[in-house]
């Protein structure tokens, strides 16, 4: 699976017609790939460099002290369009820049002199904060992805969890007074099963291609399904305690490393209300290993845990009514647990 964004386009071709980029000689391919690296999604450096450049480069604007052009109008939007870690950076930059804008606006409005030293100090503060944040983000990214390959860019298997549509629908309906959350979306079979129900469902996926395709299919005209383009763990962290009747995790619980797996279930446990359910759709280890080439197998940060391991982990975390539902028609097991009342 690639980060393809349209049935008609792909990262390898970059075009909807004509020859795929892969048939081009290596030097031409490299030339075109260089442009792809400038895309905001998938690069930390671009957003960071660009934000700093826009802060540093003098922009003349009437009524403002020289050297400050105000808040980039599209900063928020660009921040929301990027990967989760970059989005954090974008949001913080926006807040800092907003403060600086308000400060300078107030100074101008009140006809106060703002000295060059004061302005320089403010800017230095903003830059230091950005540098600090950027360093932290890069540090975090390098620790989670030491090879420099994002897991989402690797060709991963995509097994369908459709055999568990009934289980998921039943668990969701058991706390129909609260919304449910599903991340990631896979082949959207489960989301389709929930589309006609009475429960509001958030479908979360960090892949823009999957998220907007699901949004086009389920989001428009439906009050029941909200599609969220976000990292699943990030989104879980944004939710209040005990605010969801059911959380279904798939995909992300297979490929991520052990620490992230535990973080996901800890966040999900926190978010599920008492009497609600946590459903893990876990790919069978043998089917997973058989489907991978050696490169992906070697470089992926994690592999699916055995359902028995999940039962032990979830039991240790205080979840109850633990069940392992074995895959029969597919290659995905369901591990189901409840949060005690």
């Amino acid at each position, binding site marked *: 699976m690639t980060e*393809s*964004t*349209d*049935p*008609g*386009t792909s990262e390898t071709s*970059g*075009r*909807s*017609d*004509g*020859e795929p980029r892969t048939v*081009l*000689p290596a030097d*031409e391919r490299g*030339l*075109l790939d*260089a*442009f*792809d690296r*400038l*895309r*905001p*999604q*998938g690069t930390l450096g*671009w957003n960071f460099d*660009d934000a700093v450049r826009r802060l540093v480069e003098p922009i003349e604007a009437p009524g403002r002290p020289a050297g400050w052009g105000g808040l980039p109008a*599209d900063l928020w*939007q*660009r921040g*929301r*369009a990027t990967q989760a870690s970059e989005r954090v950076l974008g949001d913080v930059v926006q807040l800092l820049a907003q403060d600086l804008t308000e400060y300078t606006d107030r100074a101008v409005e009140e006809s106060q002199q703002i000295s060059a030293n004061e302005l320089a100090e403010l800017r230095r503060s903003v830059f230091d904060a950005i540098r600090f944040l950027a360093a932290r983000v890069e540090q975090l990214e390098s620790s989670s992805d030491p090879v420099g390959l994002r897991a989402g860019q690797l060709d991963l298997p995509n097994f369908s969890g459709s055999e568990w549509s009934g289980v998921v629908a039943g668990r969701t309906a058991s706390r129909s007074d609260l919304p449910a959350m599903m991340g990631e979306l896979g082949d959207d079979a489960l989301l389709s099963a929930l589309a006609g129900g009475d429960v509001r469902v958030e479908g979360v996926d960090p892949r*823009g*291609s999957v*998220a*907007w*395709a699901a*949004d*086009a299919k389920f*989001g*428009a*005209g439906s009050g029941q399904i909200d599609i969220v*383009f976000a990292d699943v763990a990030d989104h879980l962290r944004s939710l209040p305690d005990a605010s969801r009747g059911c959380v279904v995790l798939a995909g992300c619980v297979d490929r991520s490393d052990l620490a992230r797996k535990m973080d996901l279930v800890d966040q999900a446990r926190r978010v599920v209300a008492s009497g609600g359910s946590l459903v893990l759709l876990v790919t069978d280890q043998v089917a997973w290993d058989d489907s991978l080439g050696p490169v992906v197998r070697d470089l992926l940060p994690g592999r699916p845990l055995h359902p028995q391991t999940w039962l032990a982990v979830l039991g240790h975390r205080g979840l109850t009514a633990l069940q392992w539902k074995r895959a029969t028609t597919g290659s995905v097991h369901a591990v189901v647990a409840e949060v005690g009342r």
Partner: protein
Amino acid sequence: MSGIHLFVPMLHIRDAVGEHTRALRDLLVAAGVASRIYTETPDPDTAEETRPYLEYEADAQPGDVLVYQMATRSDMADWLANRREPVVVNYHSLTPPGYFAPWNNWIARHQARAASELRRLAPTAALGIGVSQFDAAELRDSGCADVIVIPVVNVRIPPVEPDAAALAGLRATGEGGPRWLSVGRLAPNKAHQDVIAALFVARATTAPTATLTIVGSPSEPAYARALRRYAADLGIGDAVEFVSRISDGELAARYASSDVLVMASEHEGFGVPLVEAMLNGLPVVAFAAGAVAEVVGDAGVLLDAKGPRRITEEVAELLADPKRRQSLIAAGRGRPAALGLDRAGSDLVAALRRVADGASHAAEHLDSADPVRPTGPLSH
């Protein structure tokens, strides 16, 4: 007095859909038909000539026809789908969301929703008008039962004269190498980066002093910035000029002072710059995506693939062969008539009048509170 009113999400000047809409309004008014432009979001540059679409309710008259200029998502689409009046969808192509997803996920989702809106609106339309066969096919695929093709009405025939001062200035500058021109919004589907990459190859091989001018507004800022950075990273920043917000005369001067129009766009519903180039005697090398092949015909060099070397070679061969170049220029001057651009305005007004006649007929037989949408396809 009933009228044929135009609905467009935003009305922009120097924008293909905006200029088409304004030109159509002027044609209708000149033909004695009442016509106003309604928008969802006002553009400060055109706010004086538009009204908020929700105010149409107070203006509505029996026998009105509503024409939706569709190229993007808008709340207007669902609103129009539920109107009593006959709705005509004048379709200018929706850029597939995939082109925007790596640059701006919000716009990608916006475009995905636009496709959903089209699928809801198209089956209810009294008539669908595609500006090309390519667009007409998309309209039919979306469920529009009655579809015709009439090209855009904002192509100036004869073309605007080049601004003399601008032309003189352009001719006095440059290193004397081939001047490539690419015209189109700085949006990812236009694939300007492929032309920049080809220029890089050209300067490294056959044409060390070749230059490129890209004329277009930065509709996706992140993409526009990346284009500039790409050129700079390749070391050809000085050879690539980005130009926007120029007058028609200045654009004509760009056509007149260039040696070739190079278009690498991967999704074109029509491609006004292709026609403008041909009208201005500029040969075209273009990637045959979307409606490009039907617009260019045999009057330009059409590429079925566009690796940087391929583009470079095609441009070099064309510029090295004056006889072929002149032949293509001559063929290009005949394309607008072949495409029906010279009669597009009258064709479009006539088509809309036929819908209006049907609506008036229906209105005479129905109480004003009843639906007046024609139930069957119209004959043309």
